[in-house]
């Protein structure tokens, strides 16, 4: 291997070794980033100030053992987010780096004004991950982040874990920055992200915020979001609670509050698949077939579930309820003129065209679109009891 003794090597063995040493030492010249000297931002919140500037609030864990607080929160106002980062650097004893950023929060007013450019800068920066979670807060994020919580610890990682585990548990749709940018630059779908609020000492995911382009429009409840995902998507471990008229089971249940008209059923480990077909092009008419399997987990009436007829009734009740809910949700979305489900993608996939469809064109079509839902539900198990 080492053939430097050969004649004809112009620089010889010594020169070769010198070059090798030089090259290995040159690799040490790269910018070092020492952990103790960097502040790792885990969360950033953006608000719109009254004079239409941006206020950014950043949260980073403090690793100073003498400090009482476990985290450091800094905030400043500016025109661009990276400009603010430079300003916050002036408030810190450490170099502020955003490579560990996990959650980007947008205040209500900011989100309504449009957040396209703010998200673009996060996505453009190669030092940031494309798995950052985006989130809308119902008020000012500054107020949310500076509130003295008792048990949340580091609010940055707390919020990350909260969103992450809810996405994994399929309670809310995934909202990474990649998915936002993908929907933002697509002509057939609108973005959505979690909608967070604060109740006293607790931070709650209140629902799902709907976007039109890069502007926040309205929010829907987790139950409505569940239906949306059911319409076009897959469930592996979802769960859902429905109310069924008590008449279905020919009984009037007694509860502590007296007689009730309705029976509540809770299903979990929902496994679903959906098939969306475009039946008619103009105006668009969709047929949505949903197959789901679920396990019944809780009933508010003591029914014995060994009767197949009864089980079938329960399935039918679930099917009807889901179909009804789906119609209501889609009506709401059409009135809002947002398409978070991506029916536009289905439309594009089924209609051959010469030129690309513009988003405005799709919105016009979307308003007139009709939907037909057909749910086929199977209750596979009922726990360990009949």
């Amino acid at each position, binding site marked *: 291997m080492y053939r430097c003794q050969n004649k004809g*090597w112009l620089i010889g063995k010594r020169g070769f070794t010198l070059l090798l040493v030089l*090259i290995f030492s040159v690799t040490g010249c790269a*910018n070092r980033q020492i952990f103790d000297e960097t502040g790792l931002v885990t969360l950033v919140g953006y608000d719109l100030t009254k004079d239409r500037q941006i206020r950014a609030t950043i949260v980073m864990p403090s690793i100073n053992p003498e400090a009482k607080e476990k985290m450091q929160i800094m905030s400043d106002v500016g025109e661009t987010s990276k400009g603010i980062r430079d300003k916050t650097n002036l408030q810190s004893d450490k170099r502020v780096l955003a490579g560990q950023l996990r959650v980007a929060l947008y205040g209500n007013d900011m989100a309504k004004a449009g957040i396209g450019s703010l998200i673009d800068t996060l996505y453009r920066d190669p030092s940031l*991950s494309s798995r950052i979670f985006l989130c809308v807060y119902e008020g000012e994020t500054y107020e949310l982040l500076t509130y003295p919580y008792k048990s949340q610890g580091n609010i940055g990682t707390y919020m990350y874990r909260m969103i992450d585990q809810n996405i994994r548990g399929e309670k809310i749709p995934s909202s990474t920055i*990649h998915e936002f940018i993908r929907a*933002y*630059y697509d002509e057939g779908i609108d973005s959505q992200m979690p909608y967070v609020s604060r109740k006293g000492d607790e931070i709650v995911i209140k629902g799902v915020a709907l976007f039109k382009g890069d502007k926040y429009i309205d929010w829907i409840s987790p139950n409505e979001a569940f239906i949306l995902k059911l319409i076009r998507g897959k469930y592996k471990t979802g769960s859902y609670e429905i109310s069924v008229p008590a008449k279905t089971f020919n009984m009037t249940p007694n509860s502590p509050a007296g007689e009730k008209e309705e029976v509540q059923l809770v299903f979990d480990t929902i496994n679903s698949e959906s098939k969306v077909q475009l039946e008619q092009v103009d105006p668009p008419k969709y047929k949505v077939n949903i197959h789901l399997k679920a396990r019944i987990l809780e009933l508010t009436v003591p029914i014995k579930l060994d009767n197949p007829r009864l089980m079938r009734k329960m399935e039918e009740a679930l099917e009807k309820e889901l179909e009804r809910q789906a119609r209501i949700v889609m009506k709401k979305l059409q009135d809002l003129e947002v398409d978070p489900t991506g029916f536009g993608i289905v439309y594009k*996939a*089924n209609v051959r065209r010469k030129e690309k469809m513009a988003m405005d064109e799709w919105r016009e079509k979307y308003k007139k679109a009709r939907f037909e839902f057909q749910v086929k539900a199977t209750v596979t198990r009922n726990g360990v009891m009949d």
Partner: protein
Amino acid sequence: MKVNDEVKAGNTISSLHTGFIVLSTQVGVGILGYQRVVAKEAGHDAWISVLMAGIVTHVTVWVILKTLKRYPSADLYGIHQEVYGKHLGAFLSLFYTLYFFLSATVILRGYVEVVQTWVFPNLATWVLTAIILFLAWYTILGGIRVIAGYIFFSVSVAIWLIGDLFFPLRFAEWDYLRPVLEANIGQLLKGMIGMSLSTIGFEVLYAVYPFVQDKERLNRGAQFGVLTTNLIYLFVMIVSLVFFSQGQLMRTIWPTLNLKKMVYFPILERFELVAISIWMIIILPNVIMYIWSGVRGLKRTFGWNMRNILYGILPIIFISSLFLVTREEMNTLNDIYGQIGMYLAYAYPYVLYLLVAWRQGTGGAKEESADVSVPK
């Protein structure tokens, strides 16, 4: 100069090694960003363009080998000499040689740009360029067998990088692929041409040929290399098309690296940084093979000493890569290079084959270019 180059039996490589050489020279810096170039023309049908480009590559490689097989052990430069005569032949060989050196420069600078954008924004261009060129120089001095060995190592070390694309597949939107064949044939062809920057590399066969031991099995080896390349390109393209929306893809410079951004492990959150570092192992064979092929050309055409040529050419590559600074310059250079590459790697082999066939058919063939099927 003799048309055929006699290579010592101890200095040959097998046909399978040649397949690896073709594979690793084809896959380089182009795979990081070809999706956008192709999809700009063919839209979501870009994968069909990739498929078509793959088939054309197979045919072109077949023609190249067909040309070479008309000689017992000649390379491009020897063939040039015979077909065009001494002066014109030397001129064309020089041109092809310059193209090889240009390839090495473009790939080298392209990789350094990726490192500067993604990993070390403050890194001076000369540092990484110098390191890579030093490694290339060291390997080339070892001879073709060392190069082939290194390339085998590089492919085995880097091939698993393709497996991590299953991470982005979790975000796949398969409806993005429909309707199939929405693009018309003209758009597909344009997309195919856009692929040429990424699929060229097999033309080093022209220079390697004399060193191949089992020439009668070379077709199998080389086509195997091309097939692997094509499958990789096809797979990466399909994953990109379902992972990105079209508008997003148009704004992404290196989609393959954005795909790798979705890969993460509990102990390793930013996999793309690892991938970019490993990419150096993939880039090096490109640089090595192109420089080696060019140097061979100068040696064969003008009879110069290979080491001296290296000492002359490496500084030129080094300095010219320092002049490329902005993204715009890189884009222009890539476009020009893709064009030249398309003509020299895809169109020229057919012309050369016809010329060789005509030359030998009219009795202009010399004795030494007798039938090939006789093993040496």
